[in-house]
């Protein structure tokens, strides 16, 4: 019996364990496997194999019973996830339904999750802008959160590393606020977007820019990507279904099959992580305790290195639930700050308008991206009554709309021959930096459990005065920029959405220089448990304005190499 146990324990021992198979976890696994490390990757959801498990990917519009709409009963049962723009009939099977993993909203928070192999990398918006030096210096310069223990130069080569593999299309724009990277040819802005780009330069003396947003889509260098079994993006804009061409980057199409090919990866779906185990004598983590999602039985896996990439809030949950004599309040939580200083991106506001110019033009075909405004507020110095600033999306479009007032044969002929063009539509939405605060936190509920018997996460996160001022400024500035460009019928909106719907929640396990005020060091190791690396959104010290996934990928790759280097010492 004893022998059996020993062998069983050996069978469940790896050289590294990665918790989570989303964008950051699969990057950690891919790097570890490339470096020859026998790696176990745990995923709480079901397996989703590239192509094989994309049931809707080639469905035509009329093949969806409700033409894309989510039935009312499902909406009624899922008030949270139904708010997400991508929760539609074609992709709803990739989202977590509200009852599957309940949580406590001490304040309104829409927690949008994807529990399957690949996680939310199947569903993301694929926008990948690098952080700049201004972003890493932000907290130190403006006196909030704590100083980042790293700077742009620490991450620069890792950004390049992940961009080359993931495939990033973009232009070399030469902007200090948004460093250039390893780009495939960028996508074209349309005639009105280019017009607006020029008008901005003219009207703001070259201090404001709107560029073609860098996106994780393959646009060229096809032989290189064929090694991953991926091909050119076909501009389908059906990415949320999973892409049969592997045209956009996801764990499923890219890093996971790559890691499996090395022979070093063991992928274990349906494994809900309960906690990370700790050995007091060694002062190190020893492994991971999981609940089998099917049998609900507890199982243990062991490894000398643990990567925690469960997505921002779930990584907090796992550490909070990893208690021991040494860490009664959660693993690595000597500072008492675990779960605190959570922040997000402010997506509440938008501006739309019309443009009567360029009336002879329209667009054709598809493209996977549109325009992007890098931050222009408070870049070199503080100049407004709020801290930091916002980036913004921008796009212009036009299409022929049929006239539908009539009925009968007139209506039918109008529908079949749409040839009436209205003015161009232009629109923008803000992506604001929010300031991490101790009062924006997550914690474990002491009574309520989820269906796996895990404590429910209590979420207490809200906007503050800085966010409100920033919304006001965005609406004013964008209105002014639109007005100066000759756009008309300018409409502003603040949809008052709850935090969370941005799906950019970050922090709680922040990096820093001082163990008294942070959880992780500059290499993403828990200060007090150095064989645990956390490289997903929970590690963020501040949020900046850029879509964060590219930064998580770079974090994961960099930390994986650090872990391997350490293990060889």
């Amino acid at each position, binding site marked *: 019996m004893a022998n059996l146990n020993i062998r069983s324990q050996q069978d469940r021992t790896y050289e590294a364990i990665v918790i989570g198979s989303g964008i950051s976890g699969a990057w950690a696994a891919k790097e570890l496997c490339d470096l020859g490390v026998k790696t176990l990757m745990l995923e709480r959801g079901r397996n989703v194999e590239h192509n094989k498990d994309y049931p809707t990917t080639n469905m035509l519009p009329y093949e969806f019973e409700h033409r894309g709409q989510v039935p009312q009963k499902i909406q009624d049962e899922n008030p949270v996830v139904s708010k997400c723009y991508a929760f539609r009939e074609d992709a709803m099977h990739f989202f977590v339904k509200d009852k599957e993993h309940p949580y406590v909203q001490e304040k309104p928070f829409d927690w949008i999750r994807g529990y399957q192999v690949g996680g939310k990398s199947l569903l993301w918006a694929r926008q990948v802008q690098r952080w700049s030096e201004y972003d890493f210096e932000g907290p130190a310069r403006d006196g909030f959160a704590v100083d980042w223990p790293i700077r742009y130069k620490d991450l620069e080569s890792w950004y390049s590393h992940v961009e080359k593999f993931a495939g990033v299309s973009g232009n070399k724009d030469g902007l200090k606020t948004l460093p250039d990277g390893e780009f495939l040819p960028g996508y074209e802005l349309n005639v009105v977007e280019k017009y607006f780009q020029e008008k901005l330069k003219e009207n703001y003396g070259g201090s404001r820019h709107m560029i073609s947003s860098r996106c994780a889509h393959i646009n060229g260098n096809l032989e290189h990507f064929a090694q991953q079994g991926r091909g050119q993006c076909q501009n389908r804009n059906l990415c949320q279904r999973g892409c049969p061409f592997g045209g956009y980057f996801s764990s499923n199409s890219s890093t996971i099959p790559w890691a499996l090919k090395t022979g070093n990866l063991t992928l274990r779906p349906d494994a809900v992580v309960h906690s990370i185990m700790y050995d007091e004598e060694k002062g190190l983590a020893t492994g991971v305790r999981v609940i089998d999602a099917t049998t609900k039985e507890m199982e243990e896996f062991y490894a000398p290195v643990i990567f925690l990439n469960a997505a921002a809030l779930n990584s907090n949950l796992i550490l909070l639930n990893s208690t021991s004599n040494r860490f009664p309040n959660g693993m690595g939580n000597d500072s008492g700050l675990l779960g605190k200083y959570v922040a997000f991106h402010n997506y509440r506001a938008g501006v739309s308008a019309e443009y009567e110019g360029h009336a002879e033009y329209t667009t*054709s075909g598809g493209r996977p991206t549109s325009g992007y405004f890098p931050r222009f507020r408070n870049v070199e110095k503080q100049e407004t009554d709020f801290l930091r600033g916002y980036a913004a999306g921008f796009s212009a479009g036009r299409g022929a709309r049929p006239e*539908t007032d009539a009925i009968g*044969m007139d209506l039918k002929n109008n529908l079949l021959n749409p040839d009436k063009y209205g003015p161009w539509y232009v629109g923008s939405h803000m992506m604001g930096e929010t300031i991490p605060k101790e009062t924006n936190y997550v914690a474990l509920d002491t009574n309520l459990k989820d269906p796996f018997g895990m404590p429910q996460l209590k979420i207490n996160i809200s906007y503050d005065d800085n966010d409100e001022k920033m919304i006001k400024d965005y609406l004013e500035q964008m209105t002014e920029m639109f007005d100066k460009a000759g756009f008309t019928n300018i409409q502003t909106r603040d949809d008052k959405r709850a935090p969370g719907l941005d799906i950019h929640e970050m922090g709680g396990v922040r990096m820093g220089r001082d163990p008294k005020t942070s959880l992780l060091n500059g290499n993403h190791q828990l200060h007090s448990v150095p064989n645990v690396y956390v490289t997903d959104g929970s590690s963020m010290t501040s949020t900046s304005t850029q879509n964060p996934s590219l930064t998580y990928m770079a974090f994961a790759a960099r930390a994986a190499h650090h872990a391997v280097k350490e293990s060889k010492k």
Partner: protein
Amino acid sequence: MNRRIALRHLALISGGLVMIPSCDFSSDDILAAYENLKVTASQKKLLGEISNTIIPAGEIKGALDIEVPDFILVMVNDCMTSENQAQFTTGLAAFPDYVKNTAGKQYDKLSTKEKEELILAGTKLEGDENKALTYFLNTTKRFTIQGYMASEYIQTEIMPYSLIPGEYNGAVLITDLQKPRING
């Protein structure tokens, strides 16, 4: 004495205990496929006639030819709140009276032009008493357009849909896009 009157007499004589077989003043079979709606077979037929007025058959098929009424009922049954479903079915039930009161005839006895005018007018009625009817007609029109345009027939035979839209061109001259006209 015709059969209907005879039955009515019989019902009166026997204190209303007689089960009245299917005819226009009784409830006919409720269609089980639309469980939230309690729509009858004859109501579905009427809905089909309305959708066929909205998008009639001509050189190419019309709404009724490609089962748009079924799509309408699926959408109302599955994708609407119960309040809106009630509005819709109330409006549907009120439609025959609206037709009789306005045109003095049954719907299927009207000319195409009369049907079109009746429905167009019905989509624009004001006042609380007409709310359900107007809601029903506008909803039916919206779903008729959607069900027709997003049908396999239109998207394969008439205006073929491609999952791959082609490379982006951000400055296409509208004059270069002239397509042969499709005659409905």
